[in-house]
């Protein structure tokens, strides 16, 4: 089969380097951007695999080729963007990493347009630093994509439950800590807030009249 990959993050490119050796893949191409992807005749490929891709694919891509992505949440409420951060801040330590197929629906409010369907899932630990989590994501991505390719083209989908609750996508100004927020948090909650916003995300910060202090790395010691 002919596979085209879309992703730019380092961990995603590392996964592609491994997955391209799957026995079912005869030909592959790696694209770092949507623009680069659109230079190709997508009808010529059997599958588009996206990794760490936070933008919408759009009709021009999703209608032409079976396109899959990986989503790292178990609950539907985390389908609206920044799922890792929102789950860590909510105190979730283990979640699910799932393969979902992209569709195109301009009315969808979710970060990626899908029908809440997934084909494969594994547990994903959200503990440690963002570096630890990226490493975990690489490992689980390889497992998931290998399973998907093993089963291809006989893929069966399951649907996760819809929730009315929405956990909104975070924006950079949400990284600001105030005295009010600090007073409400215990050290573990503060640890979770800071660690999920380590590089490459907008770091947690405090500001006064003179300057801004950004927290880049923290560790937690439970008594």
């Amino acid at each position: 089969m002919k596979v085209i990959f879309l992703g730019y993050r380092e961990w995603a490119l590392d996964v592609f380097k491994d997955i391209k050796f799957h026995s079912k893949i005869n030909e592959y191409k790696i694209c770092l951007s949507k623009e680069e992807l659109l230079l190709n005749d997508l009808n010529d490929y059997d599958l588009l695999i996206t990794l760490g891709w936070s933008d919408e694919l759009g009709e021009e891509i999703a209608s032409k080729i079976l396109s899959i992505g990986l989503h790292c949440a178990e609950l539907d409420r985390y389908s609206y963007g920044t799922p890792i951060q929102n789950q860590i801040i909510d105190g979730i330590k283990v979640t699910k990493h799932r393969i979902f197929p992209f569709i195109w629906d301009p009315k969808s409010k979710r970060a990626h347009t899908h029908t809440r369907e997934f084909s494969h899932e594994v547990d994903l630990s959200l503990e440690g630093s963002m570096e630890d989590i990226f490493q975990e994501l690489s490992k689980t991505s390889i497992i998931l994509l290998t399973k998907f390719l093993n089963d291809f083209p006989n893929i069966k989908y399951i649907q996760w439950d819809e929730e009315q609750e929405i956990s909104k996508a975070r924006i950079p100004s949400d990284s600001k800590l105030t005295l009010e927020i600090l007073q409400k948090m215990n050290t573990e909650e503060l640890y979770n807030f800071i660690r999920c916003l380590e590089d490459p995300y907008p770091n947690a910060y405090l500001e006064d009249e003179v300057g801004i202090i950004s927290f880049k790395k923290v560790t937690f010691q439970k008594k």
Partner: protein
Amino acid sequence: MKVLIYAYRDWALNVAKKLCELDEINVVIKSTDDNYSEIRSEHYDLIILIGWSDILPLELVSKFEIFGVHPSDLPNYSGGSPIQNQINDGIISTKNTIFQLNEKLDEGLIWLKYPLSLKGNNIQEIFCNIEKSSYELVKRFILNKTSIKPSPQPRHQKKYKRRAFEDGKIIPEPISVKELLRIYNQIRCLGKPYPSAYIEDSDGNRLFFDKVRYVEKDNDDTSC
């Protein structure tokens, strides 16, 4: 000239190794004290301690000319934890001092000083500054010692104690002007090899701040 250097921290060992490249001297590096048997062997023209925190036995400092590098503008900040104590006092530009050890801690003759910046977002960046300054200081001292006139230090100087783990605890106060700069200084002067600055909640759980960055609003530059 045979020079014996005691150093164990990475930055201090880098200084010692770089000094080995000077044609004028023959350097021997010791990173453990071994009961200071090398000093007792009397084979050396100069004995220098770089970033060495152990206090030498009195009989050795009385018998031999031994020099130490202290990262402060002596007699200011003599005693323990000079880097942390200066940074916490808001000092950015200081001096690195080479002095002669005597029976009192950091109170011997001052031989030479060299500028030292305490800027940096973390202790490793600050160690980098200390490494550069110490190399220049020790090199100039070794090559020009015969023409340097040492000067005595005033008596009864204030002595700082070596910081303890608990001194890294941050007591958050209302966030007001300059408060963040104080917190930033408290964090950046610690971190490996020292225990990081931390906060502790009522259950005894601790959150350690390992890496931070500070930006002044008006100039948008990393600052301290």
